[in-house]
């Protein structure tokens, strides 16, 4: 026990040093940072995160909306976790909490192996910095009055000041991060954001995040505002960063297919009204969802008729989320096609399905095949 605590302290110190003084190996370039990232980053873990908002300006005005009701998850270094759910389910709040732009009411957060619970707010900042948020709208995420060069320079200059690097290092590093995201520095550096396509802008946003050698990227609907033909390029980039730099990716979306593309080898969390209702390896959950909410969500994905056939058990669309629905019992009971009296009175807890890694929070888990599958002849 004591030994464990000491090793944790060691990790704390090491990680703090990294965050405030830099890695010291940065000068060697991309490879240095990359291997470094995997080496000491450690996992991201959340335990029982709770967050409430005072709702304002709409139907629920004045009421307290419970955005997150005790969320647990873990992402290993270089791993991927996707959070899917409707708008208003709390997935965006979760990402913002991880990146430190939103506070949380209770629960514990471990970033890069360091529990934040005991740290003063000022001491937390360097750890939160290692989790970078990639916004949905790459246009609003870049200052329209500044060139890409000056956008990248500022965080690098700060970094250089902390680590005693030279001006040349800043210039070199700016080019390196652009190379990493597949942009031509010569073309991009002197330009303003509006002179770039949506896909390029989002790559610049990712490049800017890479200037601080993040351990994790939180991508909140990161491709939904990008043209369809350019989306895959950005998704591929996020996949590459996972393998080359060991950056873990937390992907937040309502688009299940992109979540699968990013993290087919990772974990999928289905979140409903601030609660995880199903969780497991991505492919398992998609192929064999057991929670009716997951099944409704997956049934709502359009089927490419002609190329795909709808899943045999595809469910009809449920009514959209209504936050005023009762909170006793299962939160999904009011919309669930299979709900019983027990569901309306008793709250199901997240539990493992027959000893597997597949977790669910349903009294009557039943596998249903709802996702469309490719037609045999194509």
């Amino acid at each position, binding site marked *: 026990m004591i030994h464990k605590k000491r090793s944790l302290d060691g990790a704390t110190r090491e990680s703090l040093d990294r965050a405030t003084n830099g890695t010291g190996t940065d000068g060697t370039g991309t490879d240095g940072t990359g291997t470094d990232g995997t080496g000491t980053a450690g996992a991201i873990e959340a335990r029982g995160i709770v967050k409430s908002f005072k709702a304002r300006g709409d139907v629920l005005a004045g009421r307290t909306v419970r955005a997150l009701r005790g969320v647990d998850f873990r992402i290993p270094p270089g791993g991927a976790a996707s959070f899917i759910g409707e708008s208003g389910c709390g997935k965006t709040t979760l990402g913002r909490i991880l*990146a*430190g*732009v939103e506070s949380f009411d209770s629960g514990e957060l471990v970033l890069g192996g360091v529990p934040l619970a005991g740290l003063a707010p000022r001491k937390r*900042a*360097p750890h*939160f*910095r290692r989790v*970078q*948020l990639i*916004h949905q*709208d790459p246009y*609003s*995420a*870049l*200052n*329209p*009055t*500044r*060139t890409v060069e*000056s956008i990248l320079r*500022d*965080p690098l200059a*700060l970094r250089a000041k902390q680590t005693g690097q030279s001006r040349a290092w800043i210039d070199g590093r700016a080019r390196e991060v652009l190379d990493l995201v597949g942009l031509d520095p010569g073309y991009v550096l*002197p*330009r*303003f954001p*509006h*002179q770039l396509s949506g896909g390029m802008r989002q790559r610049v*946003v990712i490049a*800017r*995040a890479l*200037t*601080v050698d993040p351990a994790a990227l939180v991508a909140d609907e990161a491709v939904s505002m990008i043209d369809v033909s350019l989306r895959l390029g950005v998704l591929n980039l996020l996949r590459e960063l996972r393998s080359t730099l060991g950056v873990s990716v937390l992907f937040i979306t309502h688009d299940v297919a992109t979540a699968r593309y990013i993290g087919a080898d990772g974990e999928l969390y289905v979140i409903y009204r601030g609660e995880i209702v199903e969780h497991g390896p991505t492919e398992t959950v998609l192929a064999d969802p057991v929670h009716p909410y997951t099944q409704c969500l997956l049934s709502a994905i359009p089927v490419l008729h002609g190329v795909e056939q709808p899943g045999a058990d595809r469910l009809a669309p449920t009514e959209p989320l209504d936050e005023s629905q009762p909170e006793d019992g299962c939160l999904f009971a009011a919309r669930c096609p299979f709900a019983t009296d027990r569901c309306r009175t008793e709250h199901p807890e997240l539990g493992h399905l027959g000893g597997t890694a597949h977790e669910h929070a349903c009294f009557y888990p039943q596998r249903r095949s709802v996702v469309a599958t490719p037609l045999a002849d194509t």
Partner: protein
Amino acid sequence: MVTAVEIPTGNTPALTPARRGFWRNLWRVLRRKPTRVAGAVIVALFVVMGVVGPFLYPANLPTDPGNAYAGPSGSHLLGTDFQGTDVLALLVTGSRYVLVAAVIAAACTVVVGTGIGLYAGYRRGGPDSVLMRITDFIITIPGLPLLLVLSTLWKYSNPLTMGLVLGVTGWGSVARAVRSQTLSLRERGFIEAARGLGLSTAHVVRKELLPNVAPYVAMNLLISVTVYIYLEVGLFFLGVLPFNENNWGVMISQAVQNGVTQTGQGLAYLLSPLVAILLLTLGIVLLVDAMDEVFNPRLRED
């Protein structure tokens, strides 16, 4: 209605050189519309007049009581006043006080207003509440009576004093407007990103927020120059402020006191400062139109 397409601002937007100095940008933007060039020329003329003008004339302008209220003529382009002094000379030598005081006041307004607006909008919470209460207080101070009261302390013989007093009492509305702009900018992703990258508050305010409120601030700077000119001229016209220097407001005041409005004699004497004020206002209004494009790289492209 709906804009279905993004109208390109240029034929090859992706290839225009991206960075240029502020003055080159300004020139390019001005050239786009003849009205802007006209505005810039007018404003420049007044600046030259204020800077160089007083050196062209002796400190005490000659009087010629025998030739009072003369109309425009070859020797007196704008006629003469009640003492027979050349009106053009009065106009030129009187411009400096008015312009310097107005510019100082506008600069005060913009610096104080923008600073407070940015800080309050960015920090929100406590500092915001405190600063906005102070701002409300400043806004509610009735400017004119205060200036009158203060005239018992200062004689406003120096345009600097005048400018400072006007500026210090006039920044309230700019602060409020900049604050509300900052509040909405604050929600934009790039501000959040800058904080997430660990950049300091000073950086965020100076390099992220300021460039985005700059067009607004520049417009305010220009417009408040005209507002302060009106205010000054008004004060002197009322004659409640003692003066020991020649300026436009004094000219109008003197013209009216000497019965130009009743007799119609020496009309040029009364009209000259009024037209000068109108012309300067026009020049500034024409220039204001260019400010958005000067500071917004997207609009700036050819």
